[in-house]
């Protein structure tokens, strides 16, 4: 991959770095430090979730089973994994200095991100409609839901296998939705930020910048997007399946 021709911008670097490779390593390091900080941000929320799940185990597990749609959660997981793949392809194209292809793959990523948010919209609107809201706004009749599950033998199979004690379900339900909306909402905001970031990169790509200059912006934006996917990889089993 020869890219050492003068005047192409690939070897440009800020003067306080020894060379372009040095600058790139510094940029990557900076991005990793930011990303591990984001990991710790979500880890705080995961801690709260696991703590409350421990204290109100039956309620949390019942709500995850009965009120969260595992189909939508799984599809969303697939959508984000596919978007991670298209970002990898964008980075590959950037390394090959094919700027327009970079733009195309980034647009594909943004499309997947949009699909993720649309599915999230359907999930949220259903919950808002049912009254499955955080804290004091929780206005759902849990006993009705429990009765419906008791009447369904297939669902009872899972309830019994998972040792969920239906008599203990009830307390802590508003807390489940506080944590659900906070975690998925904060993640959704990160998706939105990622969409804007990748959109900006796609704009630059279609103007031909990555045929002239190095691929670091694409790589760093891609790393941010992978982190968004990474967080969802943990959120999905935590909220929907456990």
């Amino acid at each position, binding site marked *: 991959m020869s890219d050492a021709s003068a005047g192409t911008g690939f070897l440009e670097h800020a003067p306080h770095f020894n060379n372009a490779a040095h600058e790139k390593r510094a940029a990557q390091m900076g991005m990793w430090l930011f990303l591990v900080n984001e990991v710790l941000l979500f880890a705080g929320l995961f*801690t709260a979730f696991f703590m409350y799940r421990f204290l109100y185990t039956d309620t949390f597990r019942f709500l995850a089973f009965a009120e969260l749609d*595992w189909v939508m959660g799984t599809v969303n997981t697939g959508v984000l994994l596919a978007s991670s793949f298209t970002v990898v392809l964008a980075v590959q194209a950037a390394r090959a200095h094919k700027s327009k292809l970079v733009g195309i793959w980034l647009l594909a990523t943004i499309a997947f991100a949009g699909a993720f948010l649309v599915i999230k919209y359907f999930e949220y609107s259903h919950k808002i409609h049912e009254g499955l809201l955080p804290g004091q706004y929780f206005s759902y009749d849990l006993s009705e839901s429990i009765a419906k599950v008791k009447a369904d033998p297939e669902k009872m199979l899972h309830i019994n296998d998972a040792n969920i004690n239906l008599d203990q379900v009830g307390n802590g339900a508003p807390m489940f939705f506080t944590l659900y909306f906070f975690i998925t909402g904060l993640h959704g905001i990160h998706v939105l930020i990622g969409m804007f970031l990748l959109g900006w990169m796609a704009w630059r790509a279609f103007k031909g910048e990555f045929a002239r200059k190095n691929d670091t912006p694409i790589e760093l934006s891609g790393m941010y997007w992978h982190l968004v996917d990474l967080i969802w990889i943990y959120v999905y089993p935590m909220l929907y399946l456990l």
Partner: protein
Amino acid sequence: MTSDTHKSHGTGFYFGILLALGVLTFATFWTARHMHTGAFHTPLAVIIATVKAFLVVWFFMHLSDHVSSNKAFFLTSLFFVLLMIGLIVGDAATRLPSANPNFSAYKEMRGPW
């Protein structure tokens, strides 16, 4: 020296990783909802999620090509996350029952899962 020209894998390789991630997603769902794993299903789900995370971080994010200090940052943060969650849930699990909130499940000692 040119910009880092690491040995990059082909598109097919990354698609293979994507397929592996899909299989693991299916495994997450299957072990949580259809297998009789009992109390082990929580740590199992976390283990499968960590394997998926490793694939994304190592291959998609190219951590395998980056300098060791980046790998150290990531591992360190993972360690501290596990420490935080482990110790806080461990604290809740080993409290005197009266120290837990009212109407919570643990009025007697029980395992965290």
